[in-house]
């Protein structure tokens, strides 16, 4: 398998950057609250990949422990975020964030 370059630390970092940019684009561009939450999950996963790759590079396990904490926080964030989405949906019957502009005048 010599026709493919061997993955280095940089390959993983670039992949992580690309995934993070995709997640950012999703948060900026989509107008569906659920898809915005999913884009945030994509961004969190890109960061996790960086942690694990650098962990491998340094030969430590601290990065993997931080990934464990990131996943826990992501679970908490998803639970509360989705609860807020449900509460919002009850009020306006829509998932479009442009409909919730009561604080703006």
């Amino acid at each position, binding site marked *: 398998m010599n026709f493919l370059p061997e993955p*280095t630390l940089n390959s993983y970092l670039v992949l992580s950057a690309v*995934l993070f940019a995709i997640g950012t684009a999703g948060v900026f561009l989509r107008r*569906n609250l*659920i898809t915005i939450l999913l884009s945030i999950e994509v961004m969190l996963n890109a960061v996790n990949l960086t942690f694990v790759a650098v962990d491998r*590079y340094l030969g430590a396990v601290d990065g993997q422990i931080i990934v464990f904490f990131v996943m*826990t*926080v992501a679970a908490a964030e998803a639970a509360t975020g989705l*609860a807020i989405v*449900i509460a919002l949906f009850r009020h306006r019957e829509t998932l*479009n964030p442009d409909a919730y502009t009561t604080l703006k005048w």
Partner: protein
Amino acid sequence: MDALLFWILAALAVIASLLVIGQRNPMYSVLLLIVSFGALSGLYVLLGAPFVAAIQIIIYAGAIMVLFLFVVMLLNAQHESQVAGSEARFSGGAFARRFGAALAIALAIELGLAIRQLQATPFGGEGRPASTVRDIGLRLFRDYSFAFEATSVLILVAMVGAIVLARKERS
């Protein structure tokens, strides 16, 4: 072999994530995100982190995404996103949309340039053994025990908060 696997999994992760952003139906977005998580889990195995690969599948694909699926099915809101093409899918006016896309592209280019500054760094010691659950557990419960306990409080607060927020208000 590792190189081939890396490129396949990386391409799968990027394509699945792009499709997550592009889907009109949130149900398909959730399912495609599970594909992306599976690819990332394979990358974690390549990086010698089988524990992270396992919890990626169990917690992310198993728990968090099922939660998302429940909410998508509960709200049953596909119909509202089918109003009209990209106008309905993407938020804001034409200017806001283009500005957001430009920001995302600028971020990608910026990150790419920053990483190009580095030398291509191979992982030291390719034959390094994969980290075991034992290593992680010892480290977690010795040096990070306070953070671990704080996490359990966080989960409890999130649980109570989710129940309070999603509860029907009695009139």
